[in-house]
């Protein structure tokens, strides 16, 4: 399929995740039995073509694991990852390899994710070697140059090595490598977290431009809620490997329904001294519990100020509420006061 084939006026459901579960078996120590860590459970959502879905949550919530499970870089234990209806988890290796043209990834640490012994041109061309073997050397080079231009790298950089580049430029190389197969979906895993502020903004703008230019669909994984707010159409909030809320960016930021989402938002630093002083932080007690031994019932209850005894008994289902948004909380109706009071805007 060529780029643009799937860019109809009506967005389609590009990717559907059904009942995804991922566990890791970890050693409990030299003489202990092995323990099971549930990284993701009951993950259900759909991504429409052309949208940017932000995935947020604290360290260890499973956001990067989710990105890798979608791309089949990690095999999920259960559930389906449907790409235009086709289940990627059951795809034979060779077919999956072909499918990878459509699904690419950009990593957090740009320098660590580039082979230091390959030139920039070879790094960017690498996916073409395996995925488009029919292209000859000149055709590959032409594509590499075109892609370098699209991400703002100069043609004379093609023979340089990664260590000669700054973090921001290295991330442009990573983006070019993802872009060269003309993918439809790119998973961006903390793509700007390692970059300086001014460079971070350049890369965010670049991603937005590329998205428009190539009709990309993006999954944007980040712990930085301000950045996610800036780029995302819809936002999925994960806590201990489960979806606690999924709604549009405006809904999430203006009227969060889950107490965890709300607490996260009030904790985000605001670059405005007067607002920052006025703000009441809805401080969360303690830290995220261990995913090896998560709390019973609602896993957020140990840090939730709305928690009742029944929250320990029954796990709240992911409910569809007004406007088609999703929330998993027994008490979302009781969440008080609109967020403006908290953010002071």
């Amino acid at each position, binding site marked *: 399929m060529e780029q643009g084939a799937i860019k109809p006026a009506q967005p389609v459901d590009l990717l559907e995740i059904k009942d995804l579960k991922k566990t890791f078996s970890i050693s409990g120590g030299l003489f202990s039995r092995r323990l099971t860590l549930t990284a993701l459970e009951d993950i259900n959502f759909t991504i429409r073509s052309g949208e940017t879905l932000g995935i947020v949550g*604290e*360290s260890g919530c499973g956001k990067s694991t989710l990105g890798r499970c979608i791309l089949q870089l990690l095999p999920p234990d259960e559930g389906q990852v449907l790409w235009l209806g086709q289940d990627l988890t059951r795809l034979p290796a060779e077919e999956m390899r072909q499918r990878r043209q459509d699904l690419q990834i950009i990593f957090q640490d740009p320098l660590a994710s580039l082979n230091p012994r390959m030139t920039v041109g070879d790094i960017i061309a690498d996916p073409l070697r395996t995925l488009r073997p029919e292209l000859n050397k000149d055709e590959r080079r032409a594509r590499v140059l075109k892609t370098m231009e699209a991400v703002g790298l100069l043609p004379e950089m093609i023979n340089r090595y990664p260590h000669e580049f*700054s*973090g*921001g*430029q290295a991330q442009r190389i990573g983006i070019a490598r993802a872009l060269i197969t003309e993918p439809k979906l790119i998973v961006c895993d903390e793509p700007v977290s390692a970059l*300086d*502020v*001014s*460079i*971070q*903004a*350049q890369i*965010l*703008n670049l991603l*937005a431009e590329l998205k428009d230019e190539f009709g990309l669909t993006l999954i944007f994984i980040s*712990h*930085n*809620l*301000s*950045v996610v*707010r*800036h780029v995302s159409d819809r936002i999925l909030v994960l806590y201990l490997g489960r979806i606690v809320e999924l709604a549009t*960016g*405006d809904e999430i*930021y203006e009227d969060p329904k889950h107490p965890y989402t709300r*607490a*996260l*938002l*009030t*904790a*985000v*630093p*605001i*670059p*405005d*001294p*007067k*607002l*920052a*002083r006025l703000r009441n*932080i809805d*401080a*969360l007690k*303690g*830290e*995220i519990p261990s995913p090896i031994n998560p709390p019973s019932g609602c896993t957020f209850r140990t840090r939730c100020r709305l928690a009742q005894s029944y929250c320990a008994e029954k796990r709240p289902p992911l409910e569809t509420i007004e406007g088609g948004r999703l929330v998993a909380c027994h008490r979302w109706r009781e969440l008080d006061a609109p967020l403006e009071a908290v*953010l002071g*805007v």
Partner: protein
Amino acid sequence: MKQVLSVEDMSVTFALHESEVHAVREMNFTLAEGETLAVVGESGSGKSQAFLAIMGLLAKNGTAGGRAMMGDINLIGMAPSQLDLYRGKDIAMIFQDPMTSLNPTLKVKTQLGEVLVKHRGFDKQAALKTAIEMLERVGIPEPVKRANAYPHELSGGMRQRVMIAMALLCQPKILIADEPTTALDVTVQAQMLDLFKTLTQDFGTSLVLITHDLGVVAGVADRMMVMYGGRAVEKGRVDDLFYDPRHPYTLGLLHSTPHIAKRAARLDPIQGLPPSLEHLPKGCSFNPRCAFAFDRCLEQRPPLTDAGDGRQKACFYEGPMAYGQVA
């Protein structure tokens, strides 16, 4: 207000094979009792090296010049044995990655106790008791249990607190925090920033907060110093610099920072890359990235001069700087 630290004409230079690099030049600032000063800049701006120099922690090829006066004592150029009389006791520093600052082979209580035994002459029993009290004060639940843990058994937020507890044991007058919350999740970050506010307000500790995150600055700092290419380019009260920046770089940083409550279609970042300290541009170091640069900026370096109302800037441009112009 009482000054606890006064830095005058400080510089930091690193010797390379055949050349030298000036990481910090002509740095001047004062720090008052109970005040929080934010030092803001990007990688390579010299913001960390300046304070490593004050702590006597520069790499072997680094030398510091000028003065950093704590009372009548100049910390710059002091022998390590003499510095140890003050380091940890009067002036302490914490870092972004607590794991590199804590000894992985020693229990938390041993590391904390050592500080008290060495600097304050406590016996072991009293040291342990004080250490546990301090862990509790920085918000560590079950402090007795945590005191018996090794650093790797604690989460990132806990380790950061242990490091802060260690820095506070001797009740230093000055605490230097280098990107203390950068590695933490927002919820833990909010708890840490709260802790910093308590320290400065209740204990009168003076805090230097080295960071690239303007959100963090807005929340806790009183004054700020913006650094670029090894020099301070703008200094003043936080509100003045946020609402009325006078240096194009400060303005650019503000427009590069995404704001959670405002969704703009595009950020308005500073173009180009931060300069290499080895090849600083002629004239103003910022001129290649500056939308307001004119002839003079390419030839002369603007000195840091008073811009009224207790603020300073290093920029020749005097005209208005509107949003959308730093493009």
